């Protein structure tokens, strides 16, 4: 019985999402007839997707280590995708990466602006403190 759950649930992909992706694609492939998916086929899709993640990240890992860096970045993943023979994914993935960056940029701009403002306020505050200090020192010097 123990062999049934070799992979903990947290390391599996959500079955409902996998089913949705597969069903949507099948609908695109044959819009006229409804194609059903066997239970073991769906399970195989889930497992395959999980193995794909491992395979892709292991390849990206090697590419990253070759260039002696400690963190896998987007370019490493794109190179890895080429290396594992899914080159046709690279261009659409670049597009979605740009989209992702733009969205994040919008998000970050909002937070970083407020941070910058806070920094400015801090700097100004410190500056005024310093100037106060100076004036006190100056006063002492004058004395």
């Amino acid at each position, binding site marked *: 019985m123990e062999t049934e759950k070799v992979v903990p649930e947290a390391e599996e992909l959500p079955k409902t999402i996998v089913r949705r992706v597969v069903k949507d694609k099948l609908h695109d492939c044959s819009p006229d007839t409804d194609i059903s998916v066997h239970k073991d086929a769906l399970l195989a*899709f889930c497992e395959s997707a999980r193995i794909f993640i491992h395979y892709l990240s292991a390849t990206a890992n090697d590419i990253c280590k070759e260039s002696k860096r400690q963190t896998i970045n987007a370019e490493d993943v794109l190179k890895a995708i080429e290396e594992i023979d899914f080159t046709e994914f690279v261009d659409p993935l670049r597009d979605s990466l740009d989209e992702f960056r733009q969205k994040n940029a919008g998000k970050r701009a909002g937070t970083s602006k407020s941070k910058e403002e806070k920094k400015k306020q801090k700097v100004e505050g410190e500056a005024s403190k310093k100037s106060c200090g100076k004036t006190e020192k100056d006063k002492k010097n004058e004395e």
Partner: protein
Amino acid sequence: QEQEATNEKKKKPNKNGKKIERDDDDEVSKVCNFPMGRIKRIFKTQSSDIGITGEAVFLVNKATDKFLEQFCEDAYECCAKDRKKSLAYKHLAAVVSEQSKYDFLSDYVPEKIKAEDALAQRELAEGGEG
């Protein structure tokens, strides 16, 4: 008091809901299918000594999505050739054994054979060796 009790009951599922939402970032979940946290966890189980940027996790997420679609399309073609209206395991296994880019799955999605055939094959192989 009764009202308070019902309020508390209403709050509980909300809290649970929030916990689930945290698994995938609201903004990100609109652009990609799988929860980012899950992808990162799967990555971390294999290489914990190296870091990964958010962009890279996002790309892995998207790539997995594309891979599933591609795999599904190829399996569907196999299914259509078979003139079947349901996608079965053997269609996936056939795709894996036919196309070299799916080689990495060969241990995980092997073609099913009957035990007696497998045993017969092994006996043949052993006979050949000896």
